[in-house]
């Protein structure tokens, strides 16, 4: 049985952890971070919810099919590769463009970032699918 402390701490921590995982994902091109580490962080945040609140509670709120996220990520990543072919380059050739947005400043859009988003989905989808199916098996 989980205590009130664990539940309160989880409620406070999980949003921060999810936001941090997204920031890791977006930082990944030029700084330490990336899709894999972000996905693992997201998966650990969600699995904390699973551990503290229990599988049945989560299932009653939403019955998430994590393997669909896995497939979605795979499609995103593969499409990034095919996109490069459409532009006449080799598969997975990376490119970038710089945008100037008022009030925010220069931001760099990298096509490898889209690939990283796909990796993020694949990683948390597969890890959470493993957790859920092992927890389910009774």
């Amino acid at each position, binding site marked *: 049985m989980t205590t009130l402390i664990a539940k309160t701490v989880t409620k406070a921590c999980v949003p921060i952890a999810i936001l941090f995982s997204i920031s890791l994902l977006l930082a990944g091109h*030029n700084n330490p971070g990336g899709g*894999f580490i972000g996905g693992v962080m997201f998966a650990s945040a969600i699995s904390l919810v699973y551990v503290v609140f229990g599988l049945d509670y989560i299932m009653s709120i939403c019955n998430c099919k994590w393997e669909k996220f896995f497939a979605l990520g795979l499609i995103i990543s593969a499409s990034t590769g095919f996109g490069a072919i459409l532009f006449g380059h080799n598969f997975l050739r990376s490119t970038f463009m710089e945008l100037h947005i008022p009030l925010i400043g220069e931001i760099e859009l990298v096509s490898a970032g889209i690939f990283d988003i796909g990796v993020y989905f694949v990683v948390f989808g*597969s890890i959470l699918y*493993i957790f859920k*199916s*092992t927890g389910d*098996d009774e």
Partner: protein
Amino acid sequence: MNNTLLSITIALLFGIGTFMILRKDIIKIVLGMTILSHSANLLIFSSGITGGKTVPIITEEIAQHTTGIIFTDDLVNGILAPIVPEGTEMLFVDPMVQALTLTAIVISLATTSFLLILSYRVYKEHNTTDVSKVRRLRG
């Protein structure tokens, strides 16, 4: 290179892993597999620490003031990309080994989780974790 302690650690881990996978308990086999794959990861990692100084992120500042060797093959002096002879100064560590180790870790994560689920199923079906009792397939 020249890191005796790391080499001894890797050798010890290989030994422990090999010992563990020769046990009869399924869980010990899975743990032994994990230790073995991590020692292989450490082995890859150990091939990359060749006296570089910083992380291999080349900013403009560094690119303008290069003094050491970045990563080039120099076959005349016997330099094969990250492997350099004694005394040569390298600017960066080899970035490749980290990518390789990360890939190997991800793969061993997948196989280990699969193995754990399988051993759980074997335990559920046979009510034992003793490998010598799990042999329906003989013949």
